[in-house]
């Protein structure tokens, strides 16, 4: 009976984590390049333990037209490579800007990598070709570095639309001919209807665990009074 109580509490905690993920998805419904997360639970081999894990759904978000020359969307699977103080990182948020030196950076100032390192593009008319070629006033400057992963579950979200890679190097695939669209942005892949349904379902699960816990409490009560201990 007591073990039933513990697994009910476990279940309620899982529902709360599920809710956290859903609320985060909804909060990021308008974040460029955001990929939704889901917390799932599974019974581990150890008797009553419920194991939680989160996974990120990397399906592509909607691509919308912005007409801004520094907005880039990947039409093929992949990630833009960026440079941070902690090393190489990856992002799917293609809303780039220029910094004060005219270097192409993400909106939080991380340098976007080309095949030959960071790209200085200031002062001219910038165009980005369908294969990721970056041109300033019609002159080819560099090629956007785009990578993909054999198993994207090795990517860890760091926040700020940035992923770090925890797998080995052979998990990284260099994409030679990405399909890049200038003047477009990939929006978040959160589907509001789906999230609302998940939220309703989660809420009812959470409510039922409350009922289970109360029933177990009532049973314990009964047992105690049955033995004349009350």
């Amino acid at each position, binding site marked *: 009976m007591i073990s039933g109580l513990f697994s009910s509490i476990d279940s309620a905690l899982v529902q709360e984590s599920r809710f956290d993920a859903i*609320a985060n998805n909804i909060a990021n419904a308008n974040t460029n390049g955001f990929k939704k997360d889901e917390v799932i639970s599974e019974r581990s081999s150890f008797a009553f333990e419920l194991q939680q894990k989160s996974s990120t759904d990397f399906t592509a978000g909607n691509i919308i037209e912005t007409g801004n020359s520094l907005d880039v969307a990947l039409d093929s699977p992949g990630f833009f490579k960026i440079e941070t103080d902690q090393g190489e990182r990856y992002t799917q948020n293609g809303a780039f800007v220029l910094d004060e030196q005219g270097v192409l950076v993400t909106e939080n100032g991380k340098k976007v990598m080309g095949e030959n390192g960071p790209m200085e593009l200031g002062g001219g008319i910038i165009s980005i070709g369908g294969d990721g070629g970056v041109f300033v006033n019609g002159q080819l400057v560099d090629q956007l570095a785009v990578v993909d992963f054999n198993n994207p*579950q090795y990517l860890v979200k760091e*926040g700020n639309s940035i992923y770090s890679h925890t797998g080995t190097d052979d998990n990284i695939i260099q994409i030679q001919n990405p399909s890049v669209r200038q003047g477009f942005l990939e929006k978040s892949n959160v589907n509001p209807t789906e999230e609302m349904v998940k939220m309703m379902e989660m809420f009812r699960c*959470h409510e039922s665990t409350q009922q289970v816990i109360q029933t177990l409490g009532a049973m314990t009560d009964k047992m105690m009074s049955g033995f004349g201990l009350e």
Partner: protein
Amino acid sequence: MIRGMWSAASGMAAQQTTIDVISNNLANVNTTSFKKSRAEFQDLMYQTLNQGGAETAGGDQIPTGTQVGMGTETLGVQKMFSQGDFEQTKNDLDVAIEGNGFFKVLSNDLERYTRAGNFKMDSEGNIVTPNGDKLQPEMTVPADTLSVTIDKYGQVTAFDPTGAGVVLGEIELYGFPNAAGLSSLGHNLYMNTDASGEAIFATPGSEGMGTILQGFVEKSNVDVVEEMVNMIMAQRAYEMNSKSIQTADAMLQTANGLKR
């Protein structure tokens, strides 16, 4: 307490910023050379509840771990310097920049930049903005001038009643390594910042710079339909986030109900 409640609150704050930006864009739909802004968001940090690869009590290995996000935050409000529409005014001192570049004006003795080319003449014949800020380099139109022509490359010529022309000077354009980093001051003026970089002088029509179009003004680049669609999206997202908060509230009530 439930983390998701704060994520939802951050989501509501983000949508509020979106509405603020959209409202300002719509309010300036008829402002000469107004450039629309857009709010950008990013996800906040993630809390790792259990690390991937760690071992459980049962001896299994957790394959992916559990990461729960903490919501969203406003990354910035970015100006979009796409070209606005041109409106023909046939006014001699209305000029539009076709392409990149800014005019330099002197406002309270400080260098400022603008794309609004609806210039006027003050009592001394100086070419000024509607706020009275002098266009740089300063040009004075002689009193007996009948008409002024401004060519594609910015050369300003004044013609007197006899038809004789005198060149008053050349309008200069300025570019920035990162125009989106300019600070908006209101009154159609921009100030250069560390983010925008120093202004780069260029003659109109030179590489990467726009050309001058006399008799036209550049209208705002706000697209009303686009703003309306964004407004609907922001409003619905706001509503959904409020539902998350209601759900969190009901969950806490459920937890409260455990003890009768």
